[in-house]
């Protein structure tokens, strides 16, 4: 289901968490879908199961998944999450705009760039 | 439950047991059957011959084989002590160290006991077929028992060497040195000096004023399995009476004296090796000695002994006059002693350290060895000076 990038220096559980978040937010994993078991994911990725468990705990903490004892983990409803994620994204955009102003990029230039990018995609 | 484990693998020893059996069989029963058949050709009463002579007795070659088999078997069972990989493997297994030792020790004995018992039974059958009496049967049993005890004694002795040394090459060299060289040297000294000087023979037999070299060699000789075997055989050779018949009673008497002695000696030796085994440090595997504390004493001991031996052997010249006078070729004696001390000391240094540059590492020790050697060597010279 997910592939690890071995060149990525971040801790593995961070990678796993992020990749699942992407899958969930993009809709590949829908609400109610069951997550792979810790054991099967650990063996398929050849990583320590404690790491996977930690990733799942983080995902649960961030409300991306929920666990039913005896049955496994499942994808949660992401509506509120989406709002949060969007807010985070805009926050990051603010940072980029600030950086751009240092490079003398005006808001108009940014807007034009977005329009062109949208056109070509 | 664990005790069964090590014996399960006895099937790996079947080949060895087979070889031992064949060797032993060839030297005992086959040669025996040969002598019976030659006797039969002469047409005399075979049972009279069997009951009157000692054809089921020990033979030189058999003894030699037993001693050599004990060297080999001790090596086979305990060579894991000399191999780093193997000792790692054996000690990481969930078996107690005592049991590892005991099972290996007993395996070695089992490998020889089976051929011995088989051969004894074959001996019984041959003797029975040719009408041997109960005495002869008992004698066959006694002979097998003694040979077995001799094996265990030599085997225990060799296990001691395996435990004390850390390297297989050192084991074989030291075993040969300990057993063969004192025996040879003693014989050489007796043959060369005795044949040359008649009076020396008297001195040698009386034991007084002998060069210390000779006495020391005889003492070392006493402890080796080769001594036991050689002198034991010499003692039993004299049991034929004037008619060529065998004195069974005398023979049994000697054997029954010998058996408790060897059993006690073996038990003592076994206690020593068991205690030493528990003291082995596995990291010394592969090095010259298992107990590094013994390096210095051993070096000093051998340097002094060889210094005395070589110095006095090369330096002394006895003159056949009455009363006995000794002359000492002083320069030759000094040179040979100093040279031998230096060479032997350095050899040991290289053996223990592996580097030629380190031969002068223990200068004080070298001086002390020289002093002790000269002090010991000067003693017989001074003894004879009294009579001049």
């Amino acid at each position: 289901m997910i592939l690890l990038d071995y060149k990525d220096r971040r801790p593995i559980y961070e990678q796993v968490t992020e990749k699942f978040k992407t899958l969930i937010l993009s809709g590949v994993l829908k609400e109610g879908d069951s997550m792979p078991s810790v054991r099967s994911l650990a063996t398929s990725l050849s990583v320590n199961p404690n790491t996977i468990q930690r990733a799942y705990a983080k995902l649960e903490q961030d409300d991306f998944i929920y666990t039913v004892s005896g049955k496994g983990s499942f994808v949660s409803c992401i509506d509120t999450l989406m709002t949060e994620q969007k807010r985070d994204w805009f926050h990051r955009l603010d940072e980029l705009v600030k950086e751009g102003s240092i490079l003398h990029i005006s808001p108009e230039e940014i807007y034009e760039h977005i329009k062109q990018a949208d056109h070509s995609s | 439950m664990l005790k069964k484990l090590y014996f399960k693998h006895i099937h790996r020893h079947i080949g060895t047991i087979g070889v031992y059996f064949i060797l032993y069989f060839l030297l005992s029963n086959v040669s025996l059957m040969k002598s019976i058949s030659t006797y039969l050709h002469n047409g005399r009463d075979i049972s009279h011959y069997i009951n009157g002579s000692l054809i089921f007795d020990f033979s030189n070659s058999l003894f030699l084989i037993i001693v050599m088999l004990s060297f080999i078997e001790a090596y086979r069972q305990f060579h894991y002590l000399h191999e780093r990989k193997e000792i790692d493997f054996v000690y990481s297994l969930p078996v107690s160290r005592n049991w590892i030792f005991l099972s290996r020790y007993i395996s070695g004995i089992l490998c020889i006991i089976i051929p011995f018992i088989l051969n004894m039974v074959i001996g019984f059958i041959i003797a029975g077929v040719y009408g041997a009496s109960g005495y002869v049967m008992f004698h066959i049993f006694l002979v097998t028992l003694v040979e077995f005890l001799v094996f265990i004694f030599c085997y225990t002795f060799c296990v001691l060497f395996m435990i004390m040394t850390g390297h297989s090459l050192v084991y074989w060299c030291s075993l040969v040195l300990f057993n063969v060289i004192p025996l040879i040297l003693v014989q050489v000294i007796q043959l060369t000096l005795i044949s040359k000087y008649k009076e020396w023979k008297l001195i040698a037999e009386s034991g007084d004023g002998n060069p210390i070299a000779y006495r020391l060699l005889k003492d070392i000789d006493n402890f080796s399995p080769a001594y036991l075997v050689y002198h034991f055989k010499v003692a039993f050779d004299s049991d034929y009476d004037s008619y060529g018949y065998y004195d069974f009673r005398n023979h049994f008497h000697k054997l029954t004296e010998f058996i408790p002695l060897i059993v006690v000696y073996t038990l003592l030796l076994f206690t020593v090796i068991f205690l030493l085994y528990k003291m082995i440090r596995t990291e010394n595997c592969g090095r010259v000695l298992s107990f590094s504390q013994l390096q210095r004493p051993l070096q000093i001991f051998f340097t002094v002994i060889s210094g005395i031996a070589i110095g006095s052997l090369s330096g002394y010249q006895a003159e056949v006059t009455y009363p006995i006078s000794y002359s000492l070729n002083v320069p030759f004696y000094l040179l040979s002693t100093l040279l031998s001390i230096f060479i032997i000391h350095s050899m040991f240094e290289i053996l223990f350290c592996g580097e030629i540059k380190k031969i002068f590492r223990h200068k004080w020790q070298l001086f002390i060895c020289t002093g002790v050697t000269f002090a010991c060597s000067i003693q017989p010279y001074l003894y004879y000076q009294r009579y001049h």
Partner: protein
Amino acid sequence: MIEIKNVTKNFDDFKAVNNITLHIREKETFGLVGTNGAGKSTLLRMIADIYKPEQGEIIIDGENIYDNPTMKSNFFFISDEQYYPKNANAKYLIQFYCSYYPGFNKKRCLSLLENFDLNPSKKIDGFSKGMKKQLFMILGICAGTKYLLCDETFDGLDPVIRQTVKSLIANDMMERGLTSVISSHNLRELEDICDCIGLLHKGGVLLSDELNSLKLNLHKVQFILKDNLTAEESASGIPDGVSVVYKEHHGRLITMTLEGNEATIHSWFQSMDIVFYEMIPLTLEEIFISKTREVGYNVKEIIF
């Protein structure tokens, strides 16, 4: 749990292991790394009861392991150079180990050997070095012991086999709570599979920590100075809880290894007057080099 308490091991006058204390928790994989001659193999052999420590003791599950066969049946030791009886094949070894380790899973072992394409009836002499390691790894995993001690087992396996072995370990960790202690020079592989890392150098422990904490606490930051500032000026005002482990500059590009909280470091750099900065997580290899450099192990800098 494996407790190593103040253990010292001397080889004549050389201190191979000097007063080491480590705790290895259950159901975790502990990576033992270190510089050459640091004492990793010696320490592992002491845990496997091959060497006896001069001082200190090693306690597994509350019992001292020295000459303790019942306790020793709880672990399986795989050496870097494996011993096997002459002319033995894998079947013989399976039979052999079955009698010593009651939990040995013969069926699983034979099926794994088939999957790894190793013929159980072939003489082990005919195996390559890597295949021998594979064989013993399989035997070790199938022994069903609580603890698995591996001395440089990953070194010498090809990448595909390495992944498979890691998956096997991961599977057994979940299935039966396997605890492994793995020593290796291949830090890249250990990063995936280890929970904790113990770094040894010259017989002592430089660090012993969870891998995640290590990665969270050490950061590499590269930043470019503005023209009018010197390195010292811009790197002043280090906040509390943050320490500079290493600093290197090439002109205006400065690379620093910092120990401390990630957020604190971020805010510090944001407050600084610099052109830009980049925070890069450290790989285990870089952590190793950094920590050993601290104690003077920087051979490259000595030579060149």
